């Protein structure tokens, strides 16, 4: 009886508390731009996955008799390039390349950045060394670090993935370190430590889950940067090599035909802009939904 008196809600259905995931999703869906971004990303994913079924030609199939057909041509609604390759096919397969490179480089960059950030934030002895390395990597503006890595490894799409992954590490490490520093002084972490929990357990089970919000936002915005950088490097001839249907490389190829076939440049450019815009607005929306005070200037 006494225990029942102490638990007045026993037997009653407890009020369902909305999970953070649900709350974030609800807030995100209220943001019109973010919804637009989500739709674009979803469409790109569908294009990437279903590529072989939604195009009538392979992206490298040449037909010189059909070269430089304009938009709206019969059988090639987005026209063809100077080799007579179907622009729609190349655009769809390009979506696959950009998504694959974006996701792979972000995942590898996150793995490196999270590990370094956790170690630097948790172990004071490692902090100085790791953060000096991070500072050193930050000393290279924008795309320069990626170019240095490509200069070292050689020009190819795989090397672009490696370069962009390494470029993503310092930003992620800095964000994770910041989160770890604020979380590790919380009472529940001190309690776990006093109960004898191992460092690995504390880091992986108690600290990392509390850093997920900034990591998710960083990853989304990093996707935009990765896709943009991949196309920029391919445009410069340092990434995807012909005849790979990569959007940046397509723009570079189209430059020589700007007078006769401007669609060769316009179409892939709009695709890059839309996808990068989509990841940026979803990243912005996620930041607002998760925590508007997050700082992602780095």
């Amino acid at each position, binding site marked *: 009886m006494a225990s029942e008196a102490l638990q007045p809600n026993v037997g009653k259905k407890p009020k369902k508390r909305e999970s953070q995931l649900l709350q974030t999703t609800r807030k995100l869906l209220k943001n019109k*731009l973010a919804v637009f971004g989500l739709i674009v990303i979803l469409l790109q994913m569908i294009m990437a996955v279903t590529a072989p079924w939604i195009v009538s030609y392979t992206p490298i199939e040449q037909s010189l008799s059909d070269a430089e057909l304009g938009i709206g041509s019969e059988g090639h609604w987005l026209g063809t390039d100077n080799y007579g390759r179907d622009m729609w096919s190349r655009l769809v397969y390009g979506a696959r390349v950009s998504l694959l490179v974006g996701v792979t480089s972000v995942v590898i960059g996150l793995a490196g950045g999270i590990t370094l950030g956790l170690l630097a934030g948790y172990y004071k002895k490692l902090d100085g060394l790791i953060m000096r390395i991070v500072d050193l990597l930050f000393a*290279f503006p924008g*795309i320069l670090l990626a170019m240095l890595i490509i*200069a070292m490894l050689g020009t190819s799409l795989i090397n672009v993935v490696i370069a962009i992954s390494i470029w993503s590490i310092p930003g992620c490490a800095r964000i994770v370190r910041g989160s770890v520093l604020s979380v590790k002084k919380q009472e529940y972490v001190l309690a776990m430590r006093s109960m004898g929990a191992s460092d690995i357990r504390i880091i992986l089970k108690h600290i990392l889950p509390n850093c997920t919000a900034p990591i998710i936002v960083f990853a989304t915005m990093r996707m935009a940067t990765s896709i943009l950088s991949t196309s*920029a490097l391919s*445009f410069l001839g340092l990434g995807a090599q012909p005849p790979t249907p990569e959007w940046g490389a397509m*723009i570079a190829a189209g430059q020589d035909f700007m007078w006769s076939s401007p669609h060769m440049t316009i179409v892939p450019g709009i695709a890059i802009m839309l996808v990068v815009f989509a990841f940026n607005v979803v990243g912005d929306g996620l930041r607002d939904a998760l925590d508007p005070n997050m700082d992602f200037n780095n």
Partner: protein
Amino acid sequence: MVSLIVRRFFQLILLLIGISFLVFMSMHIAPGDPASIIGGPTASASDLEAIRESLGLNKPVLVQYVDYLSGILQGDLGYSFQTNQSVADAIMTRFPNTLNLAIASMIVAIIIGVTAGIISAVKQNSWFDVSSTTIALAGISIPNFWLGTMLILLFSVTLQWLPVGGLNAPFYTVEGIKQLILPAITLGTGSAAMIARMSRSTMLEVIRADYIRTAKAKGVRQRGVIWIHALRNAMIPVITVIGVNFGALLGGTIITEQVFAINGVGRLMIDAIAARDFPVVQATVLLVAALFVLVNLIVDIIYALIDPRISYD
């Protein structure tokens, strides 16, 4: 203030040593024997050995690095594998073009970014605010190499108002300004977007502050409140963004120079990467990274000068 400058200066030197070591090592471990690249496919083993000897490539790595560093301090950046030209000379002839482009782009970015940001904040939720905020987001997302190509298509090919590319006339002549307009807009758009976003958000914070309300209550005109009272405080974080963006612009020149066929340091770097011309890659990367950290140092100092509350302890 003096101690801040001295401390930051020493940090800068350490950082520059770190950058030079990283760049040197990257090129050192890169696959490809420099002696074979210089000697070509017909070089015999003794030729290759002689080339290695003359370049000091058979010395220990750290000795090579120290030699390289002392060379830099004396203005010797080595010789191009491709042309055998002095790398320092090659950079010196191209650097003014890169600097002109970066400065012109920054001017474009500041004028567009700060103006749009302030108007957006003052007229919050107006049509101007909504459209400029959306355009700013789009501005960050536009690949600048594509924007450049589109500007060429519109203003050079279709309307024939501006030249397609090149940057050979002095920047103070009409021809020079004409040549700079499209590349500066191309490179400055992304930074303008970021500056606009930052100016808007800081201005919004400032115009809600008590001292602004007081100024208004005292009868100061709206224009006076904005330009005299609010702007100075709102500009502090904006200056940081401008500084960071100037560094990024230096990196961005690499792509823009390629689009507009501008004979600058960025173009030199791209050609060198493709040809595996390591001394040129090393020197150009080092130059851009060094300028980037130097600009960041200057921004830190300006930041502390404007806002005496800031200390970097």
